[in-house]
């Protein structure tokens, strides 16, 4: 289901042409999609869709088109005039921007990777049949259900070199020999932001994985157990393949969200020090909203969309290929 949804993402990118191929690639059960027509359904369907569509058109589609238009102008507080692809050329030539792109992808891969691994471990632990697990499951929720900004403020305080918990505890156990300011160093600030992002994103992934694990037919485990398979073997040969669809789709969704994650970095470091934590989204915000360079900001926004779309398409393409190679349905 999720994979299908991701496929739609790709479809949306490449238009109707791909629709055909994508449909051909996914055998449709006759009862589901190619369904009989009881009523003139189309008009009713569009009637139901109209409110949502209008909303999306006004709030997202039009701004998107406008963003693309703006990206070819030098719009700022004063006004705008057409400058062609100058904004894009500037971006291509800017070493700092290339650095930002690299940072963004590094940020995304690292953070998503950690989230997936931690989520998997967490889900396994919470899925273990031990007393108290209902409570434990409850206790992973908080980072997810509170406003991101509030959690991040907590982390901001913990990262403080002089008064924060991490530095303090680190000194106490002899890890640091003086106050350690996490957000002051290039590397440490980056990894601190990653840790916070992982903290924010892990609970939801954990719960999705947990849900998927609970959906695995228990008989499979029992059958394997009767055949002598141990826990680790069952995990590797049954759990992982069985929840693979969920892992795969969470990986993509989480990658997109992480790529676009704003609050965490903005509150923790504002992109600093010296751009060490400046991702594309932060850069875009700073340029467009901070400096009122709407045109340049819009160009960055368009780059984000293009990069994400390319990434998603590539991901789905590779996934499809891998699936074909291994014959996964």
């Amino acid at each position: 289901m999720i994979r299908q949804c991701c496929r739609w993402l790709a479809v949306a990118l490449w238009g109707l042409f791909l629709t055909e191929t994508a449909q051909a690639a996914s055998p449709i059960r006759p009862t589901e999609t190619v369904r009989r027509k009881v009523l003139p359904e189309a008009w009713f369907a569009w009637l139901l869709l109209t409110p949502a569509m209008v909303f999306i058109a006004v709030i997202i589609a039009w701004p998107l088109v406008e963003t693309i238009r703006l990206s070819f102008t030098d719009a700022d507080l004063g006004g705008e005039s057409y400058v062609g692809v100058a904004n894009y050329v500037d971006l291509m030539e800017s070493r700092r921007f290339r650095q930002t792109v690299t940072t963004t992808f590094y940020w995304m891969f690292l953070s998503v990777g950690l989230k997936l691994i931690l989520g998997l471990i967490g889900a396994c632990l919470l899925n273990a049949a031990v007393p108290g697990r209902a409570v434990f499951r409850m206790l992973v929720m908080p980072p997810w259900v509170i406003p991101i900004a509030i959690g991040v403020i907590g982390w901001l305080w913990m990262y403080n070199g002089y008064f924060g918990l991490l530095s303090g505890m680190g000194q106490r156990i002899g890890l640091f020999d003086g106050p350690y300011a996490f957000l002051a160093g290039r590397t440490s600030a980056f990894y601190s932001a990653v840790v916070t992002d992982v903290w924010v994103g892990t609970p939801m992934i954990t719960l999705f994985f947990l849900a998927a694990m609970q959906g695995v037919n228990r008989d499979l485990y029992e059958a394997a157990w009767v055949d002598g398979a141990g826990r680790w073997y069952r995990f590797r040969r049954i759990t992982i393949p069985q929840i693979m669809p969920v892992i795969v789709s969470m990986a993509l969704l989480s990658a997109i969200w992480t790529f676009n994650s704003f609050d965490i970095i903005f509150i923790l470091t504002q992109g600093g020090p010296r751009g060490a934590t400046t991702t594309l989204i932060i850069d875009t915000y700073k340029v467009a909203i901070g400096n009122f360079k709407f045109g340049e900001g819009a160009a960055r926004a368009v780059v984000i969309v293009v990069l994400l779309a390319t990434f998603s398409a590539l991901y789905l393409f590779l996934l499809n290929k891998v699936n074909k190679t291994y014959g996964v349905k």
Partner: protein
Amino acid sequence: MATLDLHRISKSFGTAKVLHDIDLAIKDKEFVVFVGPSGCGKSTLLRIIAGLEEASSGKVVIDGADVSDAHPVDRGISMVFQSYALYPHLTVFENIAFPLRVQKLAEPDLKQRVMRAAEILQLTDKLKLKPGQLSGGQRQRVAIGRSIVRNPKVFLFDEPLSNLDAALRGDMRVELSQLHRELDATMVYVTHDQVEAMTMADRIVVLNGGRVEQFGTPMELYHHPATKFVAGFIGQPNMNLIPATVLGTDGGLTVEIDGGHRMTLPVDSSAASAGDKVEVGIRPEDVDLGDGGLSISVRVLERLGGVSITYGTIGNGETRFCASLPGDAAVREGEPLHLSVAPSDCHVFDASGRVLRRTAAPALVA
């Protein structure tokens, strides 16, 4: 070589006791079927044998060794699940090879054993497919393949046919029977379908409410049901049970059944006395057309071709009666029907539901 003995097995889930002191001795190479209504504890008992569930008390003995605390794989058993529990992401080959991979068997050896199993089950040309691409019957065979590849001493099956449609079920029944002969292994088979039980079993265990009602060959159960429950459960259409009053106990049992007809039945009447309320059991297929004192008002007639089944009531109109008559019997719905039954074909159950032993029972065909 494997005998399987259960000693006073009990099982409770929380406060609910679902198995009560089950004792069973299953012989080597025997095909034993557990049968009984839903929820009677069949699966639970099987899972205790498998080691998937722990008995609250009692022992599981396989080949003389107490395995109550052993890991399933160490008991030398294998199990086929109702859902087959095939690994959807693995090919047929890998599914069958799974237990061997767990054992870390060397590749050539593994391959040879999987191929052998596949041959027995005629799956050789399906080995590359995924379970999703197989039909119900083929899936079932893969599940069996996975269980035979390990050469277990005892095979356990939990309703393996219940997911199949009627026609396929018939075929698989026959195949399973043949497999049993070929493998020469001890098999324990759970079902709630009496036809499966009757056709496949060497011996049948009838379970009811967590207790063994009767353990015997199919023909024993058919001709000598120990209790009213077994009588009602075995045989299709179900045995008719007609309330009756004991009139005398000399030379069998003389009873007057609902509707006034009197019969003297060749059963052990030593424990009965005149005036007792009993129930006379008559199988639908044991009645014949002709005025033998049973008069039925026919409500519904089902013509199945070879036979016609009539449903109606007997006596005062409250006791249902079903008769299985020749396909062309001249019967009409709404009309009365006169039937006869041989006294030697009748069963008698006392008020507690226990049978009075039939003294003129038909010979048992093994």
